[in-house]
């Protein structure tokens, strides 16, 4: 079995002086796989991604990317190291064209030939990108904007992509397209760490799953097994008040 591409080991993190949000959390992402984090609001799912991408410095534990300790490194450094983060909500630049949005994903890449190759790659993977290249990104539907964000995240040939609630605010048809694109990213060799409220749907396409609550992993394992595990409902849906 291949070594894990991204590892968060015993990570502790929080915002400002407030109490810890992550309390000794460990998550591992193997190459070319989808690992899904599910859990109730406030479980710390988005915080895991922020810590992994360098947007939030951990207070304890370590982060290992492809065998190298990258704990404390900033987002630009991690982006250059092959880790890309698609933020929650719509994060396109609405007043810029789809093409400009996608090219911004390769802003740190100076090699024009490589950029052109990546553009061809993402245009094939996400047909809407090619079809609406000159349109303003803000004029696209929510699902299309999400595909532009995915395309942008793949411009640096990342080995790991962090996706924060990609189906948020999308209709069922657009959600289906987004999940289909996630599996295509995995099939193209990219590892995906996915945070998603739509737990059942996310676990259906994931290889591994982790259920978080109060900053810890309470349940983890192969996604198909998690889907049938009765504790998933207990942990994710919470217990009714006495």
């Amino acid at each position, binding site marked *: 079995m291949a070594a894990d591409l991204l590892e968060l080991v015993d990570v502790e993190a929080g915002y400002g002086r407030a109490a810890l949000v992550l309390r000794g959390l460990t998550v591992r992402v193997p190459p070319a796989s989808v690992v899904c984090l599910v859990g109730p609001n406030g479980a710390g799912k988005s915080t895991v991604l922020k810590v992994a991408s360098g947007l939030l410095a951990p207070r304890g534990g370590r982060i290992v990317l492809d065998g190298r300790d990258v704990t404390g490194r900033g*987002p*630009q450094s991690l*982006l250059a190291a092959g880790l890309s983060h698609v*933020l929650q909500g719509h994060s396109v*630049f609405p*007043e810029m064209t789809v093409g400009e949005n996608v090219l*911004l994903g390769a*802003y740190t890449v100076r090699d024009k030939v490589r950029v052109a190759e990546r553009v061809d790659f993402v245009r094939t993977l996400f047909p809407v990108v090619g079809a609406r290249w000159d349109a303003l990104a803000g004029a696209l539907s929510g699902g299309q904007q999400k595909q532009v964000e995915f395309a942008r995240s793949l411009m640096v040939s990342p080995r790991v992509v962090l996706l924060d609630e990609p189906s948020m605010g999308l209709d069922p048809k657009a959600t289906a397209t987004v999940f289909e694109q996630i599996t295509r990213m995995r099939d193209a060799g990219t590892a995906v760490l996915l945070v998603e409220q739509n737990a059942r749907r996310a676990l259906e396409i994931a290889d591994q799953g982790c259920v978080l609550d109060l900053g810890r992993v309470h349940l983890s394992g192969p996604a198909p097994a998690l889907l049938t595990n009765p504790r998933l409902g207990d942990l994710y849906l919470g217990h009714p008040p006495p």
Partner: protein
Amino acid sequence: MRSGSETFVKAAGLVGLAGLVVAFPGLASDPFVLSVGVVIISYAVLATAWNFVGGFTGYISLGHAAYSGLGGYATGLLILRADVNPWVALLLGGLVVAVLAVPVGIAALRVRGASFVIVSIALVLVLLLVFQSWESVTGGSDGLRVPRPFDADVLRPEQHQRFFHLHAVLLAVMLLCWWVIDRSRFGMGLKAIREDEDKARSLGVPTVRYKLAAFVVSAFFTALGGGLYALWFGFLDPIFQFSILVGSNMVLMSLLGGVRSLFGPLVGAVVVGYATEFFKAQYGDTQMHLVAMGVLLAVVVLFLPDGIIPAVRGLLARLRPGQASIREVTQEELAAEVRR
């Protein structure tokens, strides 16, 4: 993709505009009209210079008069105190201001939004006090007389004509720079900063360096505009040079024309400049022209929030065939759209 006819229309428009600028001094009915033309093109220079920072990064500086004023004084003082050739003084003045803009930019660009606006205003007020009190160097409240760069036998109307064309050359250089930046990797980074600075940084755009570069370029061109105006007008008074109204006018003109358009500030300057002179002529020495300008600003905010050029572009796009919101489609086309 841009169609051939669209490119032709744009090229023809550009040639027409250049022809009009070249021919304007000959078409002006009298020296007063010509001098109004110089004032308007001077506004266009300042607004376009402002737009390097305002249009590209979205940082709204109300204190850009600091750089036009400094450019004017630097040019005048280099001629008077160091006996430098006027044209060399103009260029040196621009460079001096660009160097001064580096530490100012490093400090001011650390804050965003309303805080940046306040910092920019503070700078112009500080400079006003300094230039009013430092009488031995700047002439204080009595002002500073700047020698004319042309010989005495060049009469006033001919001076207007020459300065109109000098401003036009400077404006053309600035527009070319703006156009080049707009299409460059640097420009794409700046526009990303304008849209969302944090997001741009997370994608690897060196936001601090880029903002500073745009700020310094803007200060340099604004200083050249101020210096050229000083050479033309021949007199500098700190009250007018370091006035917040001058900076506000740069913002108003750019917003009116469209801050994201190459020619937006130029269009805004023509409208505001002409309107100012028109209202002044209509209402004499009263302050009615300021009221009229206020009404104009309100109209812009209410009806043209993106400016004249984007509004006209949007209107033309709607009139183009196939761009209407309601259009006829065949059953096959509709089915194909639904499948997509």
